[in-house]
């Protein structure tokens, strides 16, 4: 079945089997391997992408369901060669260790900051509670998301 997905702003028409999950098509057809497959059972959030701006688990959605819709993966965060503030903040705050959960964490974090530019610790922890990290203990992830929020607010004020 032919479907058209707009991924990171570019429309792609791909021929998929209905049983192919969105994460398969992103990784294998479009070669966007920044979206990770972790648990493959809807638990860990490593496969998180934004669907029309909303974070969802791409291992728990068929690619055909995303036909005609906008998908943002971690590769789409960078703009004009510049790291997205959340990417810069994860680097700055050391918000990762092995990095496997990081794409999902950053996308969920970016979606949170769109709604709430200065979330409390608790609000960040609540928002990322569908994304599991087995390395960091979450402290620096929370800090990174908050730092990104502050930087985004500061740059909005400047411009």
């Amino acid at each position, binding site marked *: 079945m032919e479907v058209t997905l707009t991924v990171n702003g570019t429309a792609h028409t791909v021929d998929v089997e209905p049983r192919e999950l969105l994460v398969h098509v992103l990784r294998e057809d479009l070669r966007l391997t920044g979206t990770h497959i972790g648990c493959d059972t809807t638990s860990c959030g490593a496969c998180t992408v934004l669907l029309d701006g909303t974070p969802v688990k791409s291992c728990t959605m068929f690619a*055909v369901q995303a036909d005609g819709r906008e998908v943002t993966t971690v590769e789409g965060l960078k703009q004009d060669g510049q790291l997205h503030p959340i990417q810069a903040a994860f680097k700055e705050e050391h918000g990762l260790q092995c990095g496997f959960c990081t794409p999902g964490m950053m996308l969920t974090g970016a979606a949170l900051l769109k709604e709430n530019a200065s979330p409390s610790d608790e609000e960040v922890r609540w928002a990322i509670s569908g994304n599991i990290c087995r390395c960091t203990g979450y402290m620096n992830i929370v800090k990174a998301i908050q730092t990104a929020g502050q930087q985004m607010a500061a740059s909005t004020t400047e411009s």
Partner: protein
Amino acid sequence: MLPSSFEYHRPTTIDEALDLLASLGDDAKVLAGGQSLIPMMKLRFAAPAHLVDINRIEGLDAIEEVGDELHIGALVRHNQLARSDLINSKYHMIAAAAPQIADPLVRNLGTIGGSLTHCDPSGDLGAVMLAADARVTLRSKDGEREMAIADFLADTFQAAIEPNELLTAVKLTSPTGSYGGTYLKLERKIGDYATVAVATRLSMSNGTIGGAGIGLTSVGLTNIKATDAETALSGQAPSPELFAEAGRLAAAASSPVSDVRGSDAYKRHMVEVYVRRGLTLAAEMAGAA
């Protein structure tokens, strides 16, 4: 993990969906949020030959009051419930339960219709709807019928819905006067199934309890409506002793099994504790404590 192959259908109207369900019969499954169905298909517990994706049907995602009832469309996502001003201002059990379902990412896709039709005894909304005495609207090409939620949640993973039917809405009577309700959930971590969870509501009428509802999660083969406890509360003045008695009756109505989350005795005890606490909270909200 790849599910078995299936044919994919994407109707854009309810009539189109009902035509498909009528012609495909037992071979078809309805795909709503997919947050339970897709994992089941990936694990090959489910292998439908046809999937009817209802996500592009308009008009199934409204939360609205119609007369003295609340109507929730089948495609309303859990996060939509959690963020609804109407739900948060008046429908306390739903407001308490919605943000506790699964995790935030699952709540962005999971739907009320899918959740109820999945009929998982550890589903949170099943207990809430039992406590609320909700009804579901089932539509087929032959017409429409309403069913009490207690009848709909018939057996483990087996809702009382025919293959040619689509659940289109969940309805409940809007509370009036002094009332309160909540949903208390014990879980090891976010995203895990409830160890035990309890929905409770009370409405007051001239100093006594006019109506009560209690629904239980993860302590039996289906969500359980604790009818003996509800009956014991009705017409009585709220008191710690009365709520303790309701807790004991609800615990007696539960039949939990021991598993990694706890022993059957522990879970039964937690039903008692949560019913007592939930009723106390509900009474406080109703201004009766």
